[in-house]
């Protein structure tokens, strides 16, 4: 019973720490999270247009005290630009 309580509390602390890290990063960078999310989604759509098969990802990352959007776009051999969707 107490073990369960403890694990729930530990879980909630982990959640809090993760949320705080992000919140503070956005606060310090002076941007709103939703804007970056929208930018990320737009960028991803463009990337997917050119590499429809690729497992690309764009993540918000903390580098030192800077926040960066980093794109991971695997350029596999045989991957040709896909047809333009429209």
């Amino acid at each position, binding site marked *: 019973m107490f073990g369960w309580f403890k694990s*729930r509390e530990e879980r*909630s602390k982990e959640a*809090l720490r993760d*949320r705080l890290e992000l*919140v503070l990063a956005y606060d310090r960078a002076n941007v*709103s*999270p*939703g804007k970056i999310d929208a930018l990320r989604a737009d960028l991803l759509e463009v990337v997917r247009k050119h590499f429809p098969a690729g497992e690309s990802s764009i993540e918000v990352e903390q580098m030192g005290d800077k926040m960066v959007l980093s794109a991971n776009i695997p350029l596999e051999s045989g991957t040709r630009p896909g047809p333009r969707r429209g």
Partner: protein
Amino acid sequence: MDAKVIVVTSGKGGVGKTTTTANIGAALAKQGEKTAVIDVDVGLRNLDVVMGLESRVVFDLIDVLEGKCKLNQALIRDKRVENLYLMPASQTRDKDALDPEVFKQVIDRLLNEEGFDRILVDSPAGIESGFKTAAAPAQGALVVVNPEVSSVRDADRIIGLLEAHQVGEIRLVINRLRPAMVASGNMLSEADMVNILNVKPIGIIPEDDGIIVSTNVGEPAVLGQSRAGQAFMDTARRIRGEDVPFPVYGEEPAGGFWARLRKLLGGA
């Protein structure tokens, strides 16, 4: 309460205004009212994190006031509860960007254009401009008070100011009550506070670790199971005009559950 626009205020900081706004807002929405919660604590916004909606903030109240976005672009719809919307404060601007008259117009548009049934305004601590702006459009107020001397004193001050601002329906939310301490005579009881402040109570919320856990994960307590969450649900029902009796916390035997159990088993 008849008031559609209700300011949540306290005078003293840290007594539970934001917690109360998030939970009663979510409770009212759960009970079927289209509800907006608005953070007026410009520069120190927190309602977004308490509600777990921080990652979805794009535009904020100041953007609306300055016409930089459409009204509904600054409303974040809570996907967990139907009918619940948050308008966040700006974290980067300062309070001077808030004009009480323009704020009032925004509230009117939320009622008339967006069709909200109820609007809760989370006020910043203190009695300065932020509080005055938050109170400007309100017809009702929830004064959050803790059972301790400085909170009661500041609540009294705020109640006077609210009356001076022509806020009609003023109700007390007594927060962080510890029944065992009340029973042992070491904490003001709900009745004491109601007598001293001469304002009707509408909610009595116990001290509850569940509030800390729910804040950690960003999920209002009324969406889970906890004593405080239940008390907030009851408070929302009373706001909606239901006759929900108050639990008699003060008469609980000292030591709470274990003492009750001992008593039940015939012990002292």
